[in-house]
């Protein structure tokens, strides 16, 4: 043993070096400053605090959407919601995610992440036919905010809406997904836009393309070390259940800027928990590889080949992100299907009311995700029309009617009959359509998978026996 002490040390050093190198490639940053003209003292060029601030604004808006008391505090709640949506001159308190026992969080104010940010300025404002009234995306959200403020705990039993869910899921698409796939990963990758040979803005520590890529990553919502975590750990991080998983630098406190999992990334991990998909791995790998490619240009403009490679990474990200939303919509369509069975077979009024509450929540999540899917770069044409027709403007409510539109004052009109059975059939069709058009694989809560399994297990393999 003592004869060759250096062998052990050499091994240890080599292992440390290699694992260090591997580690660097598996987290998003830090990356060196490559701006040639930069004369500040920063050594890390990664920056996406503004995007994290917007995730926090969105999470806080969701919290507020559930704070109405049925009308009395409507004006106050609406004003508060609008301050998070439109931004405010005053620094806003982070209402979610907040610290909890065993899960301390460094930031308590939005301004600690980034100042002067809002959701409204980055919100999809094209057509949104999934909601009644012929409104744009932003108008739909403002309509929802007004209705949420009037509702009791964000729950509108008459029309079947859970506004906290609708607003939060729609925003995941209309803000984060839209900005990433229809802006930063789209036209901002063009040669003449935000070139890599120049700082993003005067005096910035990052180049044009570095920051464009970082902003897209920020909107995805993964932690910088998400690639090192299992799907379960990413999920537990977002749920504030595992400090160990979240606290990458081991300082005992979670930094929302780089250690939290938000929005799209959370749902990627949710689908990956099935073991059938690897959305998080695929998307994170593409983000990291893309960023390393930009860093390797060392502050020079990207060559055509480099930009094409970057666009290929961007396409991987966009495709998989879209699937993540489709998986989520699929799962909630399955939940809605099961909830209807629970409603129609409930033993008493209490069980029925409980089942209906869960149903409205799940429907609103599904609806939000289907609206999110229609807020990307591609508004989905025929697929969107079919999804909107099957899902409708509202779920079937307790009197077996659904919302058919809104009147001139923005009030819902609910005059169309639809039976529970028919609506369950619609949910089966929604799942069928999502499988066909998005080629999703996790397929949580597949309403017919059990049947298929049953048929397979009971099949007596034909049997050519003749009597």
């Amino acid at each position, binding site marked *: 043993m003592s004869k060759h002490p250096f062998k052990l040390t050499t091994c240890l050093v080599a292992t440390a070096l290699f694992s260090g190198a591997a580690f660097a490639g598996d987290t998003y940053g830090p990356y060196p400053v490559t701006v040639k003209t930069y004369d500040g003292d920063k050594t890390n060029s990664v920056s996406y605090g503004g995007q994290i601030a917007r995730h926090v604004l969105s999470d806080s808006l969701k919290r507020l959407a559930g704070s109405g008391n049925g009308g009395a505090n409507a004006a106050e709640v609406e004003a508060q919601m609008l301050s998070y949506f439109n931004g405010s001159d005053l620094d806003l308190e982070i209402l979610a995610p907040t610290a909890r026992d065993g899960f301390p969080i460094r930031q308590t104010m939005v301004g600690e992440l980034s100042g002067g940010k809002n959701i409204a300025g980055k919100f999809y404002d094209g057509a949104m036919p999934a909601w009644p009234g012929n409104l744009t995306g932003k108008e739909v959200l403002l309509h929802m905010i007004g209705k949420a403020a009037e509702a009791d705990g964000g729950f509108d039993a008459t029309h079947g809406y859970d506004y906290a869910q609708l607003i939060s899921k729609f925003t995941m698409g209309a803000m984060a997904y839209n900005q990433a796939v229809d802006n930063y990963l789209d036209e901002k990758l063009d040669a003449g836009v935000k070139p890599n040979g120049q700082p993003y803005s005067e005096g910035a520590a990052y180049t044009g393309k570095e920051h464009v890529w970082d902003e897209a990553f920020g909107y995805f919502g993964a932690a910088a070390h998400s690639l090192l975590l299992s799907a379960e750990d990413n999920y537990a991080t977002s749920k504030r259940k595992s400090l160990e998983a979240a606290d990458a630098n081991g300082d005992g406190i979670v930094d929302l800027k780089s250690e939290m999992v938000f929005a799209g990334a959370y749902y990627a991990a949710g689908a990956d928990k099935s073991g059938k998909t690897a959305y998080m791995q695929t998307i994170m790998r593409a983000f990291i590889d893309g960023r390393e490619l930009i860093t390797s240009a060392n502050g020079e403009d990207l060559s055509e080949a480099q930009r094409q490679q970057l666009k290929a990474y961007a396409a991987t990200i966009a495709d998989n992100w879209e699937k993540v939303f489709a998986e989520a919509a699929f799962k909630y369509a399955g939940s809605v299907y099961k909830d209807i*069975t629970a409603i*129609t*077979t409930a033993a008493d009024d209490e069980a029925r009311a409980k089942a209906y509450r869960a149903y409205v929540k799940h429907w609103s999540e599904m609806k939000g995700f289907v609206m999110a899917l229609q807020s990307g770069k591609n508004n989905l044409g025929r697929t969107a029309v079919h999804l909107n027709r099957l899902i409708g403007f509202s779920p079937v409510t307790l009197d077996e009617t659904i919302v058919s539109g809104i009147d001139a004052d923005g009030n819902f009109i609910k005059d169309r009959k639809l039976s*529970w059975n028919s609506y369950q059939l619609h949910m089966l069709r929604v799942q069928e359509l999502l499988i066909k058009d998005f080629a999703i694989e996790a397929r949580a809560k597949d309403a017919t998978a059990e049947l*298929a399994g049953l048929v397979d297990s009971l099949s*007596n*393999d034909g049997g*050519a026996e*003749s*009597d």
Partner: protein
Amino acid sequence: MDLLDQIAQIFADFVNPKKRIFLGYIALSALIALGFLVVRRKGARGAWAQAVKQILDPKVFLSRSAIADYKIFVINRLFSFLISPLLLSQVGIATAIYFALHRVEFLHPGQFSTLNQPTIIALFTLVLFVVDDFSKYLLHRWMHRFPLLWSLHKVHHSATTLTPVTVYRVHPLEGVLYTLRSIVTQGSVIPLFYFLFGSDISLYSVVGVNVLVFVFHVTGSNLRHSHISISYWPWLEHLFISPAQHHLHHSTAERHFDKNFGAALAIWDWLFASLHLSKGETSDLTFGLDARENSSEAQLSVLYFQPLRDMARIAKRLLRRLILRPALRLLALFRPPRSDPKA
């Protein structure tokens, strides 16, 4: 190794308790036959030895007909490619039916899911067995009723001795029909139950087999195709088909034609007037077909190809009768009237 694997594959049904010719079921059938024969001879001296000799009668198991059975059993394995793609469609049928059930306004998913679990399982086990048995009766009746199908089913009836392997003496196309039958019945009953009773439905089963099918097999299902003719009491033969009743089904005597189509249950024959009890019948029957049927007890080329030739002939005849003749008659209506030379 590969060759051994393939051989094992060919004979897999003998060790599969889902199949009638599972060795365990054959052994039980042999024991039942033994018990029956010994009791019938009232334990006379040498009754045991005689019974064993009768059961293992080489005149039966090594007859030309039986040897053809064995060959057909092996050859038909090659035709499994006809069946495998059909099995894939079972889930498709089940799903389509499940979707369609949502359109029935007075039903809704999970309507009876609050029923207790043992009742649901018992009901499902019973319904699946009964529907399956009825569909077997119906298809079997059609195999005898329609000339096109009889061309195929003749292969099974050309057996002049019956052994448990005769159950596989089937034309490959008939095998396809049996598979389709099974796909349609299971593909309908399963989604209906899943729809009405929820996701927890399952079967009461033994060794992976519906318990009722298991009971059918352990009570001597293999004796249906054998030379040991066991009758039940007449009242029981109204409920379950006895081996002797099935032997009558294979008999060449005209009075036995188109009787006893049932598989396990006799109630279908009873209901649809095709039941024939074994009481008063001799057990010394002749099995097989009339010479007019152009079949053979053992010649494989005839067994495999004659049905195709017969079907072609029947199809041609049908075509002439149903399409050609009416078309000609229709054309005649448009023919100009014949001029009368006397005019």
